[in-house]
């Protein structure tokens, strides 16, 4: 650009200078021409002076020797003027031919002076004087003729030079006009070119800036010819690249931040869900406890009625109905306990295929035959680290949910498969941890659900079933179980097409499965006439169970607290073979009471009883010295069976 400006200005300067030089030259020529004209006019003036002087002298010639003759000094003065006029003519610069003519005039003038002097000074007869006079006159005439000739020649030359001068002046005018016009045109062209050269890069820069501003950070200014703008374009491109890189980094950071936000939201949702579940669990646990006791009384009363009246279920279906209702209530209680995590979780490597097969067998006996159950298992499926009973419960819950969705029958499919982490469906955009995963799918071709229902499907107490039909806890429990095992659950449903639940569980390395031990089966005998101590804070419970056990022939002591139980045992310890001790009591709890009793009699047989019947808890109490465990609500038969078993273990 700089070079272009310099060249343009230089070109303008040179052109203007050439124009000015040409104009000056022509003006100089024209001026010289005019000067020549002036000189010619002056020369003509000189010639006229010469002629006038000559004519004055000629007058003297004619008057000499007459009475009108001037004195000689006057004549000499006239001749001197003539000399000066001739000298002025001669002093001018002349062309050679004019010089020759002037020399001729000067020669004639010399002769004229000689002749004149001769005529003035001569004294002779008239004839001689006339001859001398004539000689002078002739020379004077010759001078006049010569000067006239020169004058005419000069006049012609003057006319010619005037014509030439006018022609040259006109030419100068035209050249000046053309020069000015051409210079102005070039100025306009150069200015326009420079303006265009200056504005075009700026426009490109503005356009590029607008493109960048519109979000296209990959835009670059290319194909730049101008060196200055190329530098600017390079800086612009560098800026764009930096901006693009910064934007990419910002996007990465933003994605990472979004991921962290999603993860946090997930954690918050989990926490909220957990808190909600915990609150509900606590409530459910308390309800379950009370509920269990009530059911236990109902069940025990029903059993007692049956035993007292020796009534058969077929003859008194009401007893069966009471037992069924108690059984459903007991099932609900267990679910509540499971949901409240009050039941202990026993993690162990589990073969999911075997587990599903067992559940399938149960389902085939319990679910309507209008529903076809199909199972697909992947061979060599890696084990998963779960509590088998909870997974069984989860499958059952999902199967029951499917059954409810297919009131007119349908197809229930259960599938297992090993998948990669990438196949695990993300939960709230959070991907699964890398590694092998096991997918357990339970699907039906039932009614399906709308998205709004799917969104709330795992919420506790949310149910689409009618009042009293669904508890709204089944799927919430499943969700809770799966989450506890580090797994994920996903529900995909389409109205009218069916629903698929997919449970993803992390796979264990190969060889994690333990060889299942064969459980020993022992036959227990019911022993009557034994003394028992029944301890429970529920007075109705103690009363019903005491009546029932006494009906069976047992001598029964009762206590409604741990402290009372210890007192009773201290009083009748030697008679008491078995103590049935409730764990959850106010004051001294069941566990402390057990320890006291064992302190009093290390050989005492104590059957612990509680609505919280987790295996871990049972094991812990067994290690403390308990001999058995009854999970409330239990049937009277179960209790007798356990008492006999403990007694037999002796």
């Amino acid at each position: 650009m700089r070079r272009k400006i310099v060249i343009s200005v230089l070109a303008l300067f040179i052109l203007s200078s050439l124009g000015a030089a040409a104009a000056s030259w022509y003006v100089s020529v024209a001026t010289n021409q005019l000067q020549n004209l002036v000189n010619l006019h002056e020369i003509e003036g000189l010639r006229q002076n010469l002629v006038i002087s000559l004519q004055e002298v000629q007058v003297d010639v004619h008057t000499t020797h007459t009475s009108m003759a001037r004195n000689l000094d006057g004549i000499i003065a006239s001749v001197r003027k003539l000399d000066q006029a001739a000298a002025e003519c001669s002093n001018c610069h002349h062309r050679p031919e004019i010089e020759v003519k002037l020399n001729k005039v000067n020669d004639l003038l010399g002769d004229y002076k000689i002749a004149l002097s001769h005529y003035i000074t001569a004294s002779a007869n008239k004839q001689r004087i006339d001859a001398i006079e004539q000689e002078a006159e002739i020379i004077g005439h010759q001078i006049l003729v010569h000067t006239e000739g020169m004058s005419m020649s000069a006049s012609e030359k003057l006319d010619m030079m005037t014509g030439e001068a006018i022609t040259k002046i006109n030419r100068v005018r035209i050249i000046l006009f053309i020069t000015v016009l051409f210079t102005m045109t070039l100025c306009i062209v150069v200015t326009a070119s420079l303006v265009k050269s200056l504005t075009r890069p700026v426009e490109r820069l503005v356009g590029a800036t607008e493109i960048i501003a519109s979000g296209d950070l990959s835009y670059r200014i290319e194909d730049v010819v101008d060196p200055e703008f190329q530098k600017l374009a390079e800086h612009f491109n560098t800026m764009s690249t930096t901006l693009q890189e910064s934007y990419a980094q910002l996007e990465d950071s933003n994605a990472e931040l979004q991921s962290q936000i999603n993860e946090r939201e997930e954690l918050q949702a989990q926490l909220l869900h957990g808190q909600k579940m915990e609150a509900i669990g606590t409530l459910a646990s308390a309800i379950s406890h009370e509920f269990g006791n009530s059911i236990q009384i109902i069940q025990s009363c029903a059993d007692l009625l049956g035993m007292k009246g020796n009534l058969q279920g077929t003859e008194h279906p009401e007893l069966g109905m009471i037992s069924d209702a108690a059984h459903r209530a007991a099932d609900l209680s267990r679910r509540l306990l499971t949901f409240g995590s009050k039941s202990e979780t026993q993690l162990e490597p589990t073969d999911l295929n075997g587990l599903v097969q067992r559940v399938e067998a149960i389902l085939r006996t319990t679910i309507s035959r209008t529903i076809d159950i199909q199972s697909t298992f992947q061979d060599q499926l890696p084990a998963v680290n779960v509590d088998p009973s909870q997974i069984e419960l989860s499958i059952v819950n999902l199967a029951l949910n499917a059954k409810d969705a297919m009131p007119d029958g349908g197809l229930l499919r259960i599938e297992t498969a090993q998948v990669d982490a990438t196949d695990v469906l993300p939960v709230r955009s959070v991907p699964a941890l890398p590694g092998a995963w096991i997918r357990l799918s339970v699907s039906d071709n039932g009614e399906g659900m709308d998205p709004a229902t799917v969104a709330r499907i795992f919420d506790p107490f949310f149910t689409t079933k009618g009042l009293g039909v669904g508890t709204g806890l089944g799927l919430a429990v499943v969700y809770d179980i799966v989450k506890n095992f580090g797994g994920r659950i996903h529900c995909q449903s389409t109205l009218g097409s069916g629903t698929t639940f997919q449970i993803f569980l992390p796979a264990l390395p190969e060889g994690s499965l333990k060889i299942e031990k064969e459980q020993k089966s022992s036959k227990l005998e019911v022993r009557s006439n034994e003394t028992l101590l029944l301890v429970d804070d529920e007075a109705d419970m103690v009363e019903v169970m005491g009546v029932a056990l006494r009906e069976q022939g047992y001598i029964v002591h009762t206590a409604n607290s741990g402290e009372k139980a210890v007192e009773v045992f201290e009083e009748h310890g030697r008679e008491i073979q078995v103590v049935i001790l409730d764990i959850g009591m106010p004051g001294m709890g069941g566990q402390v009471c057990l320890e006291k009793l064992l302190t009093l009699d290390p050989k005492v047989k104590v059957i612990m009883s509680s609505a919280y019947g987790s295996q871990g808890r049972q094991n812990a109490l067994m290690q403390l010295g308990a001999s058995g465990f009854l999970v409330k609500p239990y049937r009277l038969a179960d209790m007798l069976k356990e008492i006999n078993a403990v007694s037999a273990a002796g």
Partner: protein
Amino acid sequence: MQAHGVSLTRHPHPTDPSEPRTAERLRRVVSALLLLFVMISPSASAEEITIGLIPEQNVFEQMKRYEPIGRYIQEKTGIKVKFSILSRYGNIVESFSKDEMDGAFWGSFTGALAIENLGIEPLVRPLWLDETSSYRGYIFTRRDSGIRNVSDMKGRSIVFVDKATTAGYIFPMAFLGEHGVTDVNSFFKEHYFAGSHDAAVTAVLNKKVDIGCAKNTIFHHLIRRDPKIEDQLFILAHSQEFPSNALGVRPDLKPEIKTKLRDALLNMDHVPEGRDVLEGFEAIRFLATTREDYAPVFHAAANAGIDLKNYEYRNK
């Protein structure tokens, strides 16, 4: 002829100490202004003399030849010199008084006439480039005229210079008389007076006349300008030497002016500008000249039977 005193302009400024002081002051102022006027007036204090010139040659050339000498005198002495040329040699004697001349460069014969009739006092004369301060008279003709002696002249035409010239008339008349010619009117077909020496030479050269008379200085001066003269003219006779034209002034001219003129001219060759003027005048220097230097003229006049006191010098 009566001599005339030199007319000098003077401006006396008398004062009277008895006049009142105011008037005195005024007069002083006026006097100072007048003095200033007088001082700045070019002619107020300049002395001017008029020097006459005889038409020794072409009057225009003659004037041109003497003007540098006049300028030199004015430059050295402050005396303005005005030259006045005459159309006739002889006129100078009467014109000298009539035109109130203060001096003249006299020819030898006119000088003798002026000394004799006007009491003119000779001052200086030039020493020519050939180391002479005199001249001779020439009688000449064209080489192709066939004239070689006086007898050949009979019936031909002759041109004299002037009756008041030594070389142009006194000498030829004496020469002709010596050769038996007593009446020029009858001996020559025509005779007339050219008025100047160069006119006489030119007339013969141009075949306007057969025989001419002139002084040798002019004759040789013309030869330097026009070599044809030497080629085509033939000198029949020449005279003895006469003193050159000399500056002679009227006897009553102020002595200091005479002295200034004489000193300026005599010392002319001592200064470069003077030598330049002398070179243009074709002279080496000026020589002091007295009446005695005119003895040969007086002698020649006597030989020609001329009574200088009563000589009719007008051409007829």
